[in-house]
């Protein structure tokens, strides 16, 4: 089966989500919170004046990473990257910032995940190994954002499906996932069902099922996963 290198897979995933955000923001402003890592890359591909990035550490209107030598050490995003301001940005305390998230004002969040199951449950905060003790804002984001986008490789490093029947790892949020984008496919959760809407041009449906442990429905209008 077709294998995509890690970097190309990431770019395909974030470009696809970026395109969706540009479509969503054609008519109205879109407020987005991007998780640490791959999700942050979505910002690089969004070409729209109507998309505004929020950082849960207290900023609306996050700009690109600061140029070397021009960093302000106190101006960071939630991933601790030294960032810049955009025109019209605002600062506020953490309760107001999470108020935006938890109050349903953030239109979309993009996060990675260890596992997503066919019920729309997501596990992304901890692998119980005794070495990690951290949740950050993950549970607030999945519970609060209007739409939760999962950006992740289709399989884990051992080649096992990350889309599963039932999450084995501790859950971050129940039934909160709206869209999953991997290098192979785009799924949407609709009325309790996981629906395959787009499939990568390089693979067949049977191949996709081989690497997907979650049960899913195939959309009547199955499309090609294009950037």
């Amino acid at each position, binding site marked *: 089966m077709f294998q995509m290198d890690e970097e190309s897979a990431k770019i395909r995933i974030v470009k696809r989500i970026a395109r969706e955000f540009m479509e969503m923001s054609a008519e109205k402003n879109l407020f987005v919170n991007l998780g640490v890592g791959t999700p942050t890359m979505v910002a690089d591909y969004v070409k729209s004046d109507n998309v505004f990035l929020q*950082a*849960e*550490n*207290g*900023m609306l209107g996050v700009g690109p990473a600061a140029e070397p030598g021009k960093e*302000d*050490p*106190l*101006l*960071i*995003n*939630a991933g*601790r990257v030294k960032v810049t*301001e955009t025109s019209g940005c605002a*600062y*506020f*305390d*953490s*309760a107001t*910032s*999470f*108020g935006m*998230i*938890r109050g349903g004002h953030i239109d979309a969040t993009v996060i990675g995940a260890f596992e997503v199951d066919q019920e729309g449950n997501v596990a992304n905060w901890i692998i119980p190994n*005794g*070495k*990690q*003790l*951290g*949740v*950050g*804002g*993950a*549970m*607030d984001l999945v*519970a*609060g954002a209007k739409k939760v986008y999962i950006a992740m490789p289709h399989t884990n490093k051992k080649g096992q499906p990350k889309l599963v029947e039932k999450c084995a790892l*501790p*859950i*971050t*949020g*129940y039934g909160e996932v709206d869209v999953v984008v991997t290098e192979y496919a785009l799924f949407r959760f609709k009325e309790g069902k996981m629906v395959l809407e787009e499939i990568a041009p390089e693979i067949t449906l049977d191949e996709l099922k081989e690497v997907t442990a979650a049960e899913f429905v195939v959309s009547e209008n199955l499309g090609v996963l294009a950037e």
Partner: protein
Amino acid sequence: MENPITSKKLKTIEEAMSLIKSGDRILVSGFGNSGDPKQLVAALSKQPIKDLTIISNDLGSPGIGLGALLTAGMVKKLIGNYYNWNPEVAEAFNAGKIDVELVPQGSFAEGIRAAGVGVAAFYTPTAAGTELSKGKDEREFNGRKYILQEAIKADVALISAAKSDTLGNLVYHKTARNFNPLMAMAAELVIAEVGEIVPAGTFDPECIATPHIFVDVLVRRG
């Protein structure tokens, strides 16, 4: 600096530290090396006190920032949300040396504010049904599950601000604001490390992020 502006609330860092005692619950502000009271924390880590409950977003790195308190054996309990940057936390927890209460960052922020504004507890959907909801009351509102998060209050808050005026009104710098205005409301004793003290009336009254009613002690950043 000659004859800098002073304030009735201004104390030396040693005077400020003398107000903190063993067993205290201490709120400490900051997120990712921004907005944390670095000098207060450094001084605290050298005090001969123990059994502290440290309530903070994270615990720095091993031996660094708040991490130094854990290394020095001063910590009894941690309440916060992200300790992955300091593996000593999980080690100490697994060894039964400290207690750790993980609270999702939004519930943590809102819980601190709640303590400051007289709210005893509130219902949030965050973490409902998850491992972090253990021991918390659950209730449905409009068909959705919520859990009861209690207020997070403290004896002392150590916070950091860009500037204070002589009364103790505080303003912050960009994302260094984070938990500071919340923690300023939620402790019996609030000690603020400030970069500069300016005359009262300097700040635009529309732009004061922490009114002086919430601030007890000022320490000038050295």
